[in-house]
């Protein structure tokens, strides 16, 4: 692991760099990307997350100019770029496959965009070494066959090559998905630092919300071609707009609830009345209760909502432990720091609960 970057975070710009206006892409009558409106701010690290088939890759390819939108516009600083080919756009994509040129050395790969611009050999060379230093590739790698590099080294080559193009916006198509966990964590942090140092705008797509949380200034969540939520990592985590976003974040308790019209709420499959912070007039919906919001209680009055159940399973998640607790017809998930639950009773009976303010109410 590298030491923390000493330079202060770049001042966040609020100017709009790129606007996607009603962007739509139709394949055989199917809307892969459906009327996406999105503004990318200058210097921001924006991550689009979504499961496979949610249209995030298609969205990115339209930004890069590799796919033509069926409808809508892409506007860069007030000028439409939708009709420009990839080589005319100030965007550059780091592919999932990295798309390194196998017949070239590390140096030749990095210099490729400069060579295309007919930059002199000596200037190319100088720039390549600077970029290699930036992405932490040893100088000796300049002449190395790119296919003999390790996975992490190839990532760095691809990154340096994209930077050599000197784009205003770097696009990332899940470049870390094939990397093992430890290295991925390192590269995530490096990428965030690189974003900060370079002052470029990054648009990153991934299916891992965890990855998005680590790196991004803002996160957009895509579902079936639509951008369903856009916000800071905190907003996405704390205030998911629907079940899909909440569940995409990770395992969570989704409780179907309806108002008993006397101020209390009925949870499907559980006995009793519950406290839920509803949303306006909605009488029906789902209460999202994160496993880490569920606590083990000493007595029934310690939380707004309280349930008695039995632990059926427990899973060690590193520093935390996840418990599956059977309550009525439901199984509740609870996550506690390791060791927090002192030696349980022989019957596995447990009293759990959560506060109404820790749950999020969504209507769909």
């Amino acid at each position, binding site marked *: 692991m590298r030491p923390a970057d000493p330079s202060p975070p770049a001042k966040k710009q609020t100017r709009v760099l790129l606007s996607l206006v009603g962007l739509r892409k139709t394949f055989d009558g199917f809307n892969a990307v459906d009327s996406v409106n999105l503004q990318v701010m200058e210097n921001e690290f924006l991550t689009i997350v979504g499961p496979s088939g949610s249209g995030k890759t298609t969205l990115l390819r339209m930004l890069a100019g590799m796919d033509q939108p069926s409808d809508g516009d892409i506007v860069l600083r007030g000028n439409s770029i939708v009709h420009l080919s990839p080589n005319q756009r100030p*965007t550059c994509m780091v592919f999932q496959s990295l*798309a390194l040129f*196998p017949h070239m050395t590390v140096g030749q790969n990095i210099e490729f*965009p400069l060579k295309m611009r007919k930059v002199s050999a000596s200037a190319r060379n100088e720039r390549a070494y600077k970029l290699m230093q930036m992405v932490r590739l040893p100088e000796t790698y300049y002449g190395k066959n790119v296919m003999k590099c390790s996975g992490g080294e190839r990532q760095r080559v691809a990154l340096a090559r994209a930077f050599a193009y000197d784009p205003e916006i770097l696009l990332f198509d899940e470049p870390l998905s094939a990397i093992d966990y430890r290295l991925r964590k390192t590269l995530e942090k490096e990428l965030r630092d690189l974003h900060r140092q370079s002052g470029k705008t990054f648009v990153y797509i991934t299916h891992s919300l965890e990855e998005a949380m680590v790196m991004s200034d803002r996160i957009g969540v895509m579902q079936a071609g639509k951008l369903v939520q856009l916000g800071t990592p905190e907003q996405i985590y704390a205030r998911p707009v629907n079940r899909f976003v909440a569940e995409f974040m990770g395992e969570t308790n989704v409780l179907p609830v309806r108002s008993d019209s006397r101020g209390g709420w009925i949870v499907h499959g559980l006995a009793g009345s519950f406290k839920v912070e509803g949303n306006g007039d909605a009488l029906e919906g789902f209460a999202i209760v994160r496993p880490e919001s569920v606590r083990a209680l000493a007595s029934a009055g310690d939380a707004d909502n309280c349930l008695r159940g039995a632990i059926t399973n427990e899973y060690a998640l590193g520093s935390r432990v996840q418990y599956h607790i059977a309550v009525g017809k439901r199984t509740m998930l609870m996550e506690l720091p390791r060791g927090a639950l002192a030696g349980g009773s022989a019957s596995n009976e447990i009293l759990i609960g959560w506060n109404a303010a820790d749950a999020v109410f969504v209507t769909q």
Partner: protein
Amino acid sequence: MPAGRRCALPVLILLALGFAAPLIAVLAFSFAQPRTFEAFATFSLANYAEIFDPANTVWTSFAWSLGFAAATVAILTVVAYPIGIGLVRVFGRWSPLISILFVFPLFISENVRLYGWVLFFLKNGVLDGALRLVGGHGPDLLFSPGMTLFGMVYTYLPFMLFPTVLGLSLQPADLVIAARDLGASRFQAWRDIELPLAMPGLLIGMLLTFVLATGAVAESKIVGGQSVIVITHDIETAFTYAQNWPLGSALSVLLTVVIGGVTLVALSKLDLDRILGRK
């Protein structure tokens, strides 16, 4: 004996008997006294002396063979590359059918197919006959060096096409898109990425067709009508009508040396590992 060597033994014996032995026999005969049938008994350079005698015109047969082969390779490269691009990237679900159509002629004997072309181009044949019906007449193309070349291009097209297609299909499609994204124009992306990556497949095809075309004899005999004599024809004549095995052997050895030389040079520039995506 280690298991590897023990298992390889049958193949080694087969190669020794089926591949090395005939070559050694030919080599030995090439140093035998002219017009004798005893190899290993005598040693003579007379056969080579005869070939290299300035008065001997057998070099023209060599020149025709190598010239035809080179021209065949050149034409096939230009023809097969675009077809290969089409099969791999453009034709989509028509590709398998078109590929099969290219393979199909291989199920029919080469000589039969060449006689088919003779019937097609013959006076009062398919083409000429059809044109006569409408008051014209067909071009007089048969039995010429040009027709020999046509026959060779026709015969060896699949041998050029399939290595080319293999090379192209092993190439990730991302790379050209990435090159364009990195600022390359269409031409630059083709020159710097597509073509170099297609080269191994093309080179294998070129090598294969060159070797096959240098040894070709049926084309010059059937559609070329022996308008020019190629070296394989000379070798055949030496072994059959002339009953001069040592001379035929010496010609064979020289042809083998030429083809072997070209092959080695080409292979030294070729990276099979990369073609197969192993590196």
